[in-house]
């Protein structure tokens, strides 16, 4: 488990675009489960009554970023890394989550080629699966 302060040591994201709150389970470099809480005073609820699907993708990508970043930090705590969202494939939304819900974000590396990582990514509210598919992250170590 990883609290938010530790997530901020790995991800460069900050308010208003840090879209995960806690890491519940992690196997660095392999897979992880993150948590995103939805509450009424978040900026996107001004225009929407639900969590916008593009931001749900971002939340999943950020969990992927932590999974890869934690591995890089294990190997070399000084390393500078850059992770970027590289793509989505075959991603299906069953429904959109709403305020008051807690989203569990489950990602697992299923393929990697050079600096591109393909994840299976799923979102759950309680036991209900609300979205799933594949996302791609590019993740590169920058010198030193």
């Amino acid at each position: 488990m990883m609290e938010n302060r530790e997530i901020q040591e790995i991800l460069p994201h900050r308010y208003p675009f840090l879209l995960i709150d806690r890491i519940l389970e992690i196997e660095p470099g392999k897979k992880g489960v993150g948590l995103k809480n939805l509450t009424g005073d978040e900026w996107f609820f001004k225009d929407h009554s639900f969590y916008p699907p593009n931001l749900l993708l971002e939340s999943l990508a950020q969990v992927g970023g932590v999974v890869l970043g934690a591995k890089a930090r294990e190997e070399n705590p000084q390393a500078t890394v850059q992770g970027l969202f590289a793509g989505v494939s075959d991603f299906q939304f069953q429904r959109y989550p709403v305020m008051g819900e807690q989203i569990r974000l489950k990602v697992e590396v299923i393929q990697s080629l050079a600096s591109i990582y393909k994840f299976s990514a799923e979102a759950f509210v309680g036991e209900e699966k609300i979205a799933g598919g594949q996302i791609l992250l590019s993740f590169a170590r920058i010198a030193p």
Partner: protein
Amino acid sequence: MIDRVLEMEKGQRVRTVKNVTVNEFFLPGHFPGEPIVPGVMTLEGMVQSALVLVNESYSRGKVASTLEKVARLKFKRPVVPGDQLEFQVQLTSRGDHALKFKGKALVGGETAAEADFILKISIREVGFEL
């Protein structure tokens, strides 16, 4: 500071819930790199829960209530992103123009804060009584 009402007994008590996420306006400054929910926001959640109870119990929109006094407020553990806050607020006594409440904020069944507070009531519509 409230996302859902879980349960309510009109004129008695209410149970509400608030999800805590890092994506809230008060957390970047409290504190940079170390987000902790400000204690006053937890108090705000208890007060807002009491306001919901008052409005639902005594004809919606006809009474206005404001926080008059915080008699006691205790924080027992920090609240951080990922936590789910449950507010349990109980009306303990009723005067002519004041309502007394006992409130609790819990995270996973553990008490994070407790408060005793008073709301001042004013009647917005003539001829309406509590």
